[in-house]
């Protein structure tokens, strides 16, 4: 039986009259890689802060390992949160940051951290404030991986990391996760890069959960169909439309829940990537919210 490491139930967070989270409910199973997706300001970081006791919910309950995280050293010691911009004390060097991490995380693997330092080309004696933006992010990635925390959050850990360093991160994450299964939450905008790594997706937009599904199920969820307007319209009947583009007599629709038909040779079908599905779903949600706003 797989159990949930994270459970949010009806979590709302308000800052004055701004609602950052609006009745958010989702659960994340143990020992899987989860993708927490959404636009900037969608509420992902707020959700992760509440789960790691760095922020308080206005309403609702948040639990990790079946317990409330606030002032709960037992569950927080099993949790590692790598943020977009980690800050270290001014006099800290790279090896100081690693030593501090080693004392905080019970599952810390010093040899693994050393390997990663070399692979990311991090100078261990360099002061943290003299590191480039990418190197600072790499320190966070090294700590996140070597902590081997049973629950690890990576919140946009890549600022300044180039494509080669990001690939290194994905490869090392995958290899280490295979040997040491744990629960990983990846929050990212680079959906195409992680779509094959994540097993489960939660998409948050404007403080609400839009998608909570297995990544595998989402792969076949939408299809793009292109062809003569009439044939495409005929095919689209009864399916929910995510996106529409027209050029003269040609129409391209992104449809949810439609299965490609081989009988009509005029229609061309293309799979919709997870990234495209997320973009189209978010766009449609924005359009719906605009309509609601106009009505109220």
């Amino acid at each position, binding site marked *: 039986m797989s159990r949930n490491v994270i459970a949010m139930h009806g979590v709302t967070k308000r800052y004055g009259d701004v609602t950052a989270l609006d009745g958010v409910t989702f659960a994340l199973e143990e020992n899987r890689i989860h993708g927490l997706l959404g636009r900037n300001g969608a509420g992902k970081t707020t959700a992760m802060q509440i789960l790691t006791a760095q922020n308080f919910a206005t309403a609702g309950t948040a639990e990790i390992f079946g317990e409330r995280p606030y002032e709960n050293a037992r569950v927080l010691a099993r949790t590692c949160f790598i943020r977009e911009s980690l800050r270290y004390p001014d006099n800290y060097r790279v090896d100081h940051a690693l030593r501090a991490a080693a004392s905080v995380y019970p599952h810390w693997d010093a040899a693994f951290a050393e390997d990663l330092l070399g692979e990311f080309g991090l100078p261990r004696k360099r002061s943290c404030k003299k590191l480039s933006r990418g190197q600072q992010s790499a320190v966070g990635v090294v700590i996140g991986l070597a902590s081997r925390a049973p629950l690890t959050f990576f919140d946009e850990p890549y600022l300044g990391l180039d494509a080669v360093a990001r690939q290194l991160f994905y490869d090392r994450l995958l*290899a280490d996760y295979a040997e040491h299964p744990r629960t990983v939450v990846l929050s990212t905008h680079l959906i195409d890069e992680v779509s094959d790594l*994540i097993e489960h997706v939660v998409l948050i937009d404007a403080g609400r959960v839009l998608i909570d599904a297995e990544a595998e199920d989402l*792969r076949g969820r939408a299809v793009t169909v292109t062809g003569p307007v009439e044939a495409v319209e005929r095919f689209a009947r009864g399916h929910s439309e995510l996106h529409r583009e027209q050029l003269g007599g040609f129409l391209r629709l992104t449809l949810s829940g439609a299965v490609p038909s081989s009988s009509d040779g005029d229609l061309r079908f293309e799979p919709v990537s997870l990234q495209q599905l997320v973009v189209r779903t978010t766009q449609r949600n924005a359009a719906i919210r605009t309509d609601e706003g106009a009505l109220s």
Partner: protein
Amino acid sequence: MNDDGRPLFVQIAEDIASAVVDGTYPEGTQVPSSNELAAFHRINPATAAKGLNQLVTQGVLQKRRGIGMFVAEGARARLLDSRREDFASQYIAPLVTEARKLGIDPEQLKKMIDVWGDER
């Protein structure tokens, strides 16, 4: 992996099945583990394991506890049988549909196939 819209675990299973059919993995040999497949294809290990388990269910692979997955006896023959069954719907149907569109009647199509076969 290629995003052709099909589930990744199905693609993993088909890759290995194809390798069994073409003799890359003869019967009785060990196939890559889910972790090896995950690292090679850069996919989640659980997805790779799902692909392997599908082949176990189909009788193509056999699990040997603590050692790994091996190609089952008779796997190649079984895969060939099922692929022959699918051949008509996967290859003949689109061929006939396209031929009809181009005004090629069934007799002409048969002749073209004969000529094609002779030339090879």
